[in-house]
C-alpha cells in the first residue's frame, strides 16, 4: 500500500435491492490519470462519489495518502471535483468562481488575486475574469470549473463526465488540454466516462466496469489489444465475434476452416467465440497460409479514411466486419459480390467462452 496514493479496499454499495458496487478493490499511484470506463449504470459514478464522500458506501474502505478516509464527510477529504453540468455559480463572475474555495482559507486578498490570474492564464482565458458563466461557451465554462477545482491545489482531481455535455469538436480539443494540464500539474486524477475513445486518449490506466464489477484494469494498449473479457472486447473499440469450436490446444474451427490461435484462452474443448478486430483482418498474407479463409463481400461502407466491409464466411451466419484502406480497395478491386482470400492472424485472434 506504500506506493499507492489512493487505495480502495473491498468497497460495496447497495441501494435497496440494487447492488451498485460489488467488492471493488483498486490501487491508484500518485500522479496517475485513471479513467473509470463503462456503460451507464455500471457503477463508475457511484465509485467516484464514494471516493469523494458524496455518497457513503455500504461497506469497505478507502485510503488516501496513507490516511483512512472511508467515513469522512467530503469537507474533510482532499479533492477537487468537476461535473458534467459545470456547476458554476451563475451569480458569481469567473474570477469569483475560481476564488470560491480560496477565500474561505483566509488567504490574503492579493494572494487570491494572483492565484486567480495564474489559473486564468493556465486555462487560456486570461481576460475572462469579469465575465459571468452564461457569457462563456460550454468549453470555456468547463475550463473555469476545472480551474476552480484545482485552485486549492487538491491532492486528487475528480472529473465526472466532464466532456459529455460538449460538442464533438470542442470535446476533442479540451480532452487534449485537460490531459496536458494534468501532466504539468502532476495531480492524481480520476475521470469517469462512458466514451471509450476519451478514455483511450487520456488515461494512463483504464478501469473498465460493468454491473458494479471491475472487468479489467490496464493501460489503454492492454485494454484494446488484450481484452480480458468479451464485455471489454465489445465495449472498447469494434470487435467481431464468430461462433467456433475449439478442437485442441491452439486450434479452432470456424465454419469449415480450422485456424491456429493462441493458447492462453479458455481450456477444454467445445463451443467458444473467436473475436477479431476489423482492422486486424488482412488481405495480404506473408507466406503463412495456415490462417487463410475465403469470404464473400456483402457490402461496402465508405467512411472517409477507410472502407468498412461486411463479409460472409461459408458456414457462418454472423457477418465478419473488416476495415480496408482505400488503397487496398482500389489495388485489390474489392467490391460487393467478390470473393476474397483473407488472413486472420493467429496472434490477433481472441478466444472467449461461449
Amino acid at each position, binding site marked *: 500500500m506504500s506506493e499507492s496514493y489512493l487505495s480502495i479496499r473491498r468497497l460495496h454499495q447497495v441501494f435497496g435491492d440494487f447492488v451498485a458496487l460489488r467488492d471493488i478493490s483498486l490501487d491508484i499511484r500518485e500522479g496517475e490519470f485513471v479513467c473509470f470506463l463503462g456503460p451507464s449504470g455500471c457503477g463508475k459514478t457511484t465509485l467516484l462519489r464514494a471516493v*469523494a*464522500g*458524496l455518497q*457513503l458506501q455500504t*461497506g469497505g*474502505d478507502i485510503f488516501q495518502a496513507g*490516511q*483512512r478516509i*472511508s*467515513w*469522512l*464527510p*467530503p*469537507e474533510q*477529504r482532499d*479533492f*477537487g*471535483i468537476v*461535473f458534467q*453540468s*459545470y*456547476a458554476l*455559480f*451563475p*451569480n*458569481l*463572475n469567473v474570477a469569483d468562481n475560481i476564488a*470560491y*474555495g480560496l477565500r*474561505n*482559507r483566509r488567504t490574503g486578498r492579493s494572494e487570491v488575486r494572483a492565484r486567480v490570474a495564474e489559473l486564468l492564464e493556465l486555462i487560456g482565458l486570461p481576460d475572462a475574469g469579469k*465575465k*459571468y*458563466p*452564461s*457569457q*462563456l*461557451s460550454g468549453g470555456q465554462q468547463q475550463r473555469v470549473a476545472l480551474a*476552480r*477545482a484545482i*485552485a*486549492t491545489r*487538491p491532492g486528487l482531481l*475528480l472529473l465526472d463526465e466532464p466532456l459529455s455535455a460538449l460538442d464533438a469538436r470542442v470535446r476533442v480539443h479540451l480532452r487534449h488540454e485537460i490531459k496536458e494540464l494534468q501532466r504539468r500539474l502532476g495531480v492524481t486524477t480520476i475521470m469517469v466516462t462512458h466514451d471509450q475513445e476519451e478514455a483511450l486518449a487520456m488515461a494512463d490506466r483504464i478501469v473498465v466496469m460493468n454491473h458494479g464489477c471491475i472487468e479489467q484494469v490496464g493501460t489503454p494498449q492492454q485494454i484494446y489489444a488484450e481484452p480480458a473479457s468479451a464485455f471489454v472486447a465489445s465495449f472498447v473499440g469494434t470487435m467481431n465475434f464468430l461462433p467456433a469450436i475449439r478442437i485442441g490446444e491452439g486450434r479452432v474451427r470456424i465454419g469449415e476452416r480450422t485456424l491456429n490461435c493462441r493458447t492462453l484462452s479458455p481450456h477444454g474443448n467445445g463451443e467458444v467465440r473467436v473475436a477479431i478486430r476489423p482492422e486486424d483482418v488482412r488481405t495480404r498474407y506473408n507466406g503463412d497460409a495456415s490462417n487463410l479463409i475465403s469470404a464473400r463481400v456483402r457490402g461496402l461502407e465508405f467512411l472517409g479514411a477507410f472502407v468498412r466491409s461486411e463479409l460472409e464466411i461459408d458456414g457462418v451466419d454472423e457477418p465478419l466486419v473488416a476495415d480496408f484502406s482505400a488503397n487496398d480497395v482500389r489495388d485489390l478491386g474489392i467490391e460487393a459480390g467478390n470473393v476474397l482470400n483473407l488472413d486472420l492472424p493467429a496472434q490477433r485472434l481472441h478466444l472467449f467462452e461461449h
Partner: protein
Amino acid sequence: MDTLLNPPGFLAKKRARLLGIDCSLPILCLLVAIAMLAIALVLPLYSLLSKSLEDRHGQFVGLANFRAYVADPSLMHSITNSLWVASLTTLIVVSLALMTAFALTRSRMPGRGLLKVLVMGPIFAPSLLPAISMVYLFGNQGVLKDLLMGHSIYGPIGIVVSMSFWCFPHAVMILCTALENSDARLYESARALRTSPLRAFMTVTLPSIKYGLISAAFVVFTLAITDFGAPKVIGGQYNVLATDIYKQVIGLQNFQMGSVVSVILLLPAVLAFAVDRWVQRRQVALLTARAEPLRVKPHRARDWSLLLLCTPVAVVILGVLGMAVYASLVTFWPYNLDLSFNNYRFDLMDGGGWGAYFNSLQMAGWTAVIGTLVIFANAYLVEKVPGLGPLRTLVHLMAMVPLAVPGMVLGLSYIFFFNEPGNPLNGIYGTLAILVLCTIAHYYTVCHLTLVTALKQIDGEFEAVSASLKVPFYVTCWRVTLPVCLPALLEVALYLFVNALNTVSAVVFLYSSQTALASVAVLNMDDAGDIAPAAAMGVVLMLTCIGVKGLHWGLSRLLLGRSQCWRQARA
C-alpha cells in the same frame, strides 16, 4: 496508535454520523422545522377534530354532535347550497378563464398587455369588495337592478357572481402557465400533416392543458366552497358552510357545532387537494426538456374575434372595481351623489378605524418577512440537504396540508389550540403574533411549492462542489442559492403580503380589540350597515396592494439590473 487513527469501520461510521457538523446541524434544523409546522398546523387541527367529538363540557360524546348536525335540516341545507354555488362558480370561471388565457398566450390580440394587467385586478382586493360592488350595481337601490328582471342579488346569484369575479385571476394564472408550456414542434407536425386548426386544438392543445384545466377547476372549487367574504356580504338568507361556521361560533357561541361544520367543510377541500396532487404528479412527464417554445404568429380573424370576446371580460372587471371606487366616494347613496372623502373617515365608524389599517399593514409586513424566510429555510432543507429522507418527506407533506385547510377551519382550530389555558403558548392569543402565525400557516403551501421549484432549478451539484472546496453549506446558501432564488423570494413575499392584507376567513376568529384588522373592518362595517365606508376600506386595501405590487415590480427591476446582471448576460 494505528487503531486510534483508523478505528474499525462501524465505529468510524458512527463517529462520522455523530460528530460531523454537517450531519447533525441539518437534523437539528429539520426537527425545528417539524416542530414549527406541528405547532402552527397539525396540533391546532387535532384539537379541532377532537373538539367536534366533545360536548360543551369537554366530555367525549363520539359522533353525537354530527348526529345533531344531520338532524337539523337548515344546517344540512347548507351542504347542498355550498356544493351548488361552488360548482356553478367553477363552471363559469374555468370556461371564461380558458378563453382569456388562450387570448393572452396563443394570440396576437391587440391590447393583450392591458388585459393581462386587468385580469389580475381582483386578486388585490378582499373577496368582500366585489360583493359590496354587486350591492351597488344590483342591490335594492342598484343602478343596474332591472337587468336581474325581478330576481334578487342577495342569494345564490350574488354569491356566484362575486365569487366568480374573485376566483377568476387564479384560474387564468394556472391556465396561462399550462398554455405557455407547449411544444411548437407538435404544432408544426400537425400542420405538416395538414391538420385543421380545430382538430389541432382538440388533439394537441386540449390534451396538453388537460391537467391545467383539472387543476384550475379544483382550485376554483376549493376557493369557492371555502370563501366566506362573498356569502357573508351578499348571501342574504342563503346559508353556506363557511357562513355557518361563523354563525355557530360568533353568533351562537356553539363551538362544538362550529367544529362539526368545519370538519364537513374539510372534506371537499381535502378531496380537491388530493385530486390536485395527483394531477401535479401526472403533469411532470408531459413536457420534455427538448420542447421548442411556441411563437404565435398574427392571425386576423382569430385575434379580432378574441378581442370581441374578451372586451366584455375587461369591461366587467373595470366596472365592478370602478363601481366600488365610485361608491366609496359618493357622499350618501343614492340621495346625494356628490363626491367626497366622507366615507374614508374611518375613525367615525365601528371596526377599528385607521388604526385597523395600520394593524393590517404591520401584520402583512411581518407575515411577508418572517414567512418568506421561514418557508425558504424549510424548502431549502427539503430540497438541498443530502440524506435524512424520511424527515425531509415529513416536512414536505406537512407543508402540503394548508392547501386543504379552509381559512375558517384554521382560524377556529387556533382558538381551540391556543386559547387552552394549559398551552404554554397561550400568551400569544389575542396578539399580532397569532395573526401572523395563522396567516403564514394559511398560505404556506403555494409559497413552499414556489420556492421548491426555484430550488430545483439550481444545479444539484453546488453543495458537492462547495464541500470539495471546504466551504460550509450555509456559506454557499448565502452567496449563491439565496441570490439565485431572489426573484422567487420576492414573488413569495408579495403573495404573502397581499393575502395577509386581504384575508378575512382565518383571522376573523383571532383578532382582538387591540389587533383589529382592516379586512375584518370591511366585514364589520358592512354588517353594521355602513356599506359605503366598507367599500372605502376595501378600496384602500386594493390600492395598497396595487402600490406594493408596483414596489415589487420596481424592486425586481432594480435587482435584476444590479445584482442579477448575470441573468441577462448572454454572449
